[in-house]
Every structure is written in C-alpha cells, then in structure tokens.
C-alpha cells in the first residue's frame, strides 16, 4: 500500500496539518450548531403564517407544559443551547488562553446523543400520538419534517465531531466526506416538501459542483487560469439540447448524451487549448476569456442554424426510465447528479495522485524545471484542459435536460466567474474545499438571494417598513462574487479549506516564469 505511506509522508508537516484539521473541525461543529439552530427556527421562520405550526422550543415557552413531549422539549432546549454555543465559545476561550479539555467534549457528546434520542422520541410522540398544541402538523406546506431532519442531522454531526475529535482533526478529508455525504444523499427526503429547494439542489448546487470540480482540475491542479470555462458548459448543454429535442427531431437518451457532451466539450477544450497553451498564464486567462465570449456569441448568432439564435433551444427531453420519471420531480436529477459527481470525484482524486497529477503539480510549481525533467508541458496542460472541459460538458448535458431550455444567456461570463469564485472560496486545488465552496456560494446566490426578495417583502408588511419591499436582492450577486474573490485572495488565499501545499505556496509567493516566457515566445 504505497498510498498509505505517501499519506504518512505528507503528514509530516505536523503544524500545517493540525491547523487544517482544526479548520475542518470548526466548520463541521459550526455546521452542526447551525443545523440544530435551523431545525429550531425553521418552522417559525419559514411558516410565519402557519402560526406556531412547528417543532420549536419557543412554543413550549409560550404555552404551559401539558404532556411528556413538552417537558422533554425543555431538555432538548438545553442540549441545543450547549451545541449552538460551543463553536462560538471555544474560539473565545482559546483567545483568552484557556482550552476546553476532554471533559467538555464528553459533555457535548452526551448532549448530542441525548438530543438525537429526544428528537426521535418527540417526533414519534408528535406523529403517532399527535400531542397538540406544541407541534404543528406534518401536512404539506409545513416544514416540520425538514426541521426534524435537520435537527437530527445536526445532532448526529455534533456527536461525530465531539465524540471523535482527534480523528476528525487527523483525517480531515475523510471526516469531511463522511459528514457531508449522508446530507447529500438524504437531501431530497429531508426537503421533500420544498420542491423549489430541490430545484436548487439539482439545478444549481449539483451542476455548479460539477463545474467547480472540473475547473479545479485546470486552475487548481494545473495552475492555469481559465476564465472562459462557461464555454464548455455551453457546448455540453447545446450538444445535449440538439440531440434530445424536437429542434432537429433527434431524441437520444440522457445517459448517452452526458458522455457525448463530455466528449465534445473535451474535444473543444483540446482544439481551443492546443494553440494557446504555450502562452503565459495571464495571457492564457484573457484568451480563454475571449473564447468564453465567442461561444455564446456564436450561439446567439445561430451558427449553421444549429443553436436557435438568442432564444436558444427549448423542449429538451426529460428522461423516463420505467418508474423513474425525471420530469415529475427534480429528485431524480439530483440523485443522478450526485452519483455522477461521486464518480467524478473519485476519478479526479485518483488522477490527482497519479503520474499525470504529479506532472500538473510540477508544472504549476516550476514550468522550466518540469520541461527539463521530461514533462511535455503542452500536452500535460492540454490534458488538464480537456479533462476539465469534459466535466463541464457533462454538467452541461445535465443542465440542458433539467431546465429543458438552453439559451446563450445561460453561459455568460458571470457563470465562469461564479465557478471561479466557488473554487477560490472553497480552496483552490482541494476537492473537499471545492465541495464546500459550491455549497456555500450556490446557497447564497441561487437560494438565499432570490428568496430574499420575498422574505423582505413579507417582513416589510409585518413590521411596516415599506422600504424593505421591492429590493431586488439578486442584483447583489455581482457584489458577492467580487467580495468573495477579493477577500479570499487578500485574507486567506488558500480558501476555506486549503489544499496541503497550496496555502503556504500562495502565501510565500514567488513564482517561476513560464517556459514560454523563458523562451521568449510570449
């Protein structure tokens, strides 16, 4: 098992490793706190009108205890307070020079386990005995279900981080994966009452995660800045649209089209990359930006009558395998995308650790030395480009099928920047970071901002501040991208979850010239 040994080697810079591990620990424990808190607040927050319908301790405070469930809720509230406060209190304590010992961890573990058990019990009480008036109904249109799920997930996560702290700190990536994967799998079940949330999860989260994984190969692994990444996304989407819509009267199944989209996109990646990859880094960036603008331009101008002009191609097929009818619920898309993402993640991780992955790092660190050590810089870069593009094409094929209409506006520069922001935010070159980044950014941009419009309107009516109504929060998208890029680069260039070497590398600076610069080609 050379891999085990290699990870042993890599773990040798103990300090950096610990810091990173602690970051993961902190992220996971605050996520647990947030989930518990959200489970607590969600019914109240989202269903402001269904008055009290929900699963929330504050209701218990308002109405006198009438049964077992209510009393249990007091206990539950205690566990919630402990877990919600922990991630805030702990850094504060560290600032003051004291640390929490094993005992504190054990208390929190117990709190988490108790909370988890109580949640199950209360849920049972609610759904079977229907103890009123504390708990709202589970009927459609309420979020009680989701609240219960989130609470349970939060408790489980808390149990994991506080129960196995050294392990979480030591094996951060594994811990991160174990913490995140069940959430990914159960998401459609947890939020089955909120179809628009599932739409977000499939159409934004999963798609952008795939895109970010692909761009991470180019920017993170190989160190090439690609600003026109949306072009390959567009190519995949248009390929899928052309082969599965009434436009050309071809109807191929999606599972063929995703491979086709990937293949065509990677072909384009290779063709576009071949003449330009010799260029210096910043020139390459601007050339890719040019490509990223040309491709939607071509689509708008309806080249060869293939793309349907500014209106794009509509009526794209949504697949239907025996009982899986993709058009009825986004959940099937979501799960397919999850599966595809997992496969992509595994493959990319393997590649990262293989001969080619090593060559990418070498290239990123010192192109001249890499070339003199026998690495063909052009084909190695081209490979990164093609692989990145193929993942993007794959995402594009799915995207076309999900939204059922593609038009040039879907692939503007801001898409490329969104994907770039995701990897910069999450951690350039680190797959776990990319996943985290795609969750955070798509949640803010594609879920919170669009909904803010509605929330603020509601709020303006409730508190009678007319100014709050009618603010178009989606117009803040650009500001968020901009701030994410600037602040991360200035304050934490490695991203939230930096890759091992990347953090020190970006901070210590110093970069070698590219081969092209040395040879005077560019």
């Amino acid at each position, binding site marked *: 098992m050379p891999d085990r040994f290699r990870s042993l080697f890599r773990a040798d810079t103990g300090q950096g490793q610990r810091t990173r591990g602690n970051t993961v620990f902190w992220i996971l424990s605050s996520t647990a706190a947030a989930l518990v808190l959200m489970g607590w607040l969600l019914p109240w927050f989202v269903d402001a009108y269904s008055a009290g319908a929900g699963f929330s301790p504050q209701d218990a405070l308002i109405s006198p205890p009438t049964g077992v469930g209510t009393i249990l809720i007091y206990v539950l509230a205690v566990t919630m307070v402990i877990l919600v406060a922990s991630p805030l209190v702990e850094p504060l304590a560290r600032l003051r020079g004291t640390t929490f010992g094993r005992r504190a961890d054990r208390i929190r573990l117990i709190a988490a386990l108790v909370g988890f058990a109580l949640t199950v019990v209360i849920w049972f009480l609610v759904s079977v005995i229907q103890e009123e008036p504390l708990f709202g109904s589970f009927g459609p249109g309420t979020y009680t279900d989701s609240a219960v799920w989130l609470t349970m997930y939060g408790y489980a996560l808390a149990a994991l981080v506080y129960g196995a702290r050294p392990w979480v700190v030591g094996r951060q990536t594994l811990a991160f994966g174990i913490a995140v994967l069940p959430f990914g799998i159960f998401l459609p079940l947890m939020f089955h009452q909120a179809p628009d949330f599932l739409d977000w999860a499939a159409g934004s989260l999963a798609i952008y995660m795939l895109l970010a994984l692909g761009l991470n190969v180019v920017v993170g692994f190989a160190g090439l800045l690609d600003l026109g990444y949306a072009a390959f996304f567009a190519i995949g989407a248009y390929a899928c649209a052309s082969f599965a819509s009434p436009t050309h009267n071809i109807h191929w199944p999606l599972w063929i089209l995703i491979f086709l989209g990937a293949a065509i996109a990677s072909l384009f990646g290779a063709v576009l990359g071949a003449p330009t990859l010799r260029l210096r880094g910043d020139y390459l960036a601007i050339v890719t*930006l040019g490509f990223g603008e040309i491709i939607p331009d071509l689509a708008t101008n309806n080249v060869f009558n293939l793309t349907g002009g500014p209106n794009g191609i509509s009526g794209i097929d949504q697949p239907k395998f025996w009982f899986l009818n993709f058009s009825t619920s986004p959940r099937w898309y979501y799960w397919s995308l999850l599966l595809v993402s997992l496969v992509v993640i595994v493959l990319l991780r393997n590649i990262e650790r293989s001969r080619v992955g090593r060559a990418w790092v070498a290239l990123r660190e010192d192109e001249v030395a890499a070339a003199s050590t026998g690495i063909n810089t052009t084909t190695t870069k081209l490979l990164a480009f093609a692989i990145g593009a193929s993942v993007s094409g794959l995402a594009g094929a799915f995207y076309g099928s999900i939204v059922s209409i593609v038009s040039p506006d879907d692939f503007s520069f801001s898409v490329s920047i969104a994907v*770039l922001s995701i990897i910069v935010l999450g951690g350039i070159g680190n797959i776990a970071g990319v996943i985290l980044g795609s969750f955070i950014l798509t949640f803010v941009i594609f879920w919170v901002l669009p909904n803010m419009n509605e929330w603020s309107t509601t709020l303006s009516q409730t508190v009678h501040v007319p100014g709050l109504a009618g603010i178009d929060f989606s117009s803040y998208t650009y500001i968020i991208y901009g*701030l994410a*890029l*600037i602040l991360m680069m200035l304050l934490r260039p490695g991203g939230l979850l930096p890759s091992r070497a990347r953090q020190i590398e970006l901070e210590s600076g110093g970069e070698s010239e590219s081969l092209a610069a*040395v040879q005077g080609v560019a």
Partner: protein
Amino acid sequence: MSEYKGPPAADPGALGVGTSRGGSAMLVAQSGLAPRHGRAGGILGGLGPLVRLLQGWISTYFSLLLLGMMALAIGLTGVQHGVTLMGEQIKNALVLGAIYALVAIGYTMVYGIIELINFAHGDVFTASGFYAFGFASLFHLDSLATGSFGGLILALVIVFPLSMIAAGVTGALIEFVAYRRLRDAPRLAPLITAIGVSFLIEGIMLVVEGPDNVTTHMASWINGEAFSIAGVSVGYTDLFVIGMALVLMFALGAFVRRTRLGKAMRSTAQDRTAALLCGININRTISATFFIGSALAAAAAIIYSINYGVLKWNIGFHLGIIAFTAAVLGGIGNIVGAGVGGFLIGIIYVFGGSLFGGEWSEALIFAVLVLILTFRPVGLFGVEVTTRA
C-alpha cells in the same frame, strides 16, 4: 523530520527497475546507457516542424496580414455600400478608436509597470462615466453647456478635471486596497483579485444605477455639423472626440518623457528592483500610474457620454476587453502602441461589423485578440524580448 523506514517490499523486477539494495545498487539506470529513439513522437510528431514553420511564418507576417485585411475590409465596404458609407464608417471608426485608445493606455501603463491585466479598468471607465453624470447634475451643467459656447467650455472645464480626479483616486485606491499586498504573490493571485474588483464595481453600479440604460443628457452638449466632405457629414462632436483624445495622448506622452514622475514610471517598468535602488519611491510611482490611467479612462468615459448619451452598468466589461485587445495589438506596455492600437481596433470593429453584420463585431474582436496572443504576443510593433532562465 521523521525517519523514513522504507516502503514494504515491492514485487521485484517490475519494469526492470533495479530493486537490489546494498552495495550493488546503481545510481545510473542501465537502460539509460542504451541508445534511444525518442525522436518520432507519433503522428503529430511528424507534423510538428510543419506546424512550427507555419506558425513562424504567420508570426512574422502577422502585422502585414492584419493591416492588409483591414485595408481590404475598408475597400470592400466602399465597393459594396458606396463611398459615402465608407467615409461615414471611417469617421465612426475614428471616434470609437479614440475612446478605445484612451482606455487602452490605462491597461498598457498598468501592465507595463506591474505586469497585471487590470480587469477593473473597464469598470473604472463606466464608474467615471457615472461620476461625470453625477457632477453634471450636481452643478446643473446640462443647461450651462447647452446655453452658450462659453457655458459649454465652462462645463467641460468643470466636468473633465473633477471626474478625472475622482476616477484617478478610485484607480489608485483600488491598487492600494486590492493589488499592493499581492505584488510579490504568484501571478494568478492579483489577477483573480482584479476580476473580483471588476465584479464588485459592476455590482455596485448595478445596485445604484439599476439594470437599464441610463441617459446622461450629455449627448446634447455639443451638436451641429462642422463640415462635410464627399457627402460625409462631420459633426463638432466627432471633432471634439478625436481632438480631445489626441490632445490627452500627446500630453501623456510629454508627461512620461519629460517629468521626473514619468521617468520614474519608465524606470520602474523596466526594472523595479533597480529603480528602487536608485531611490525611486515605487509605491508612489505605481499609485501615480493607476491614477493617470484611470483619469484617462474618465476622459474617455466623458467623451463616450457626450458622443452616445447613454451609460449602462456593464458597458465597461466588453469595452475593457476590446481596449485591452487594442493594448495587446500595439504591444503591451507600449503607450504609443496602445494609442495606435485603439484606432486600429476601432477600424476592425466598425468595418468588421459592416462586412459581417453588427452582431459579429464583438466576436471578431475576441478572435483578433486570440490570434494576436497566439501568433504575435509582442504586438504589431513589438520586438521579441527574452527573459532570464
């Protein structure tokens, strides 16, 4: 530093790599002594020299090819649509070119001095257009400018310096906040920040000014026909636009060549360390570069506003890329080149549009950008320079 205990035993003889440990281990792999035939690299290997030859040929004659095609495009327009339209288009190209030239200078100056593609520059252009609009409404310049000739002059004398100073401060501030700390970081880092700044500025303008076109009323400041030749009517606005651009460019040229600060800029661009050793204040020089570049962008934005009368939150993005193309065309870092490149790009934009249809203009410019960077990254007039290995 933990002692490495060695890997577990591997299967011996895999791929013929010697695994014997101890005295007989070899540093030099035996296969290394065998003759090798690494020459032929597959199918593409044979094509390599041909491709290289072709690429070399195109690189050498790129300038001629491009200029020839531009002349051809102008001629074709004349044949297809008549001489009057051709003249009209030449005028339009010069007006557009003047604006591109002014913006391109900002790109080229910044790139010349810190080797950064300042993505935010195009948005500084837009922002300063809005500054000018703001000053115009603040001081009621519209009525002043349309009242009398003297009023117009006064309005211009007010709006130009104020907007240019405001834009200059914005540019210098951007450098101070976003780029200065990353000056010695890997190239990618400031580039990403620059994109961030660009998006931030666009986002702010989107929130403040809204998503639609904003009419600035400046289009009514200057009007009337100055003269007409061969049926082409040349307005005072056109003269003003081109004249103003030329005046500013020559002023900049004189500044860079004559003044101490200009000399400091040139020496910093050549070799920052050496400049530092000569006692030049690098930070101040770089700030000044951003200030001047942004001020010129502001002038371009006012001219734009006077000529077209509308602004929009995101015009700076595409305009910026086009101007950057102009800067590359003229040889990045070369101020005169940027000026000339701006006018050339104006011609390509306008005549490409009249030949292939306006919807292709922008794609055409991007294609030109890709072609220049691929075949002749040093620009039309540039000489090849080799950096150190």
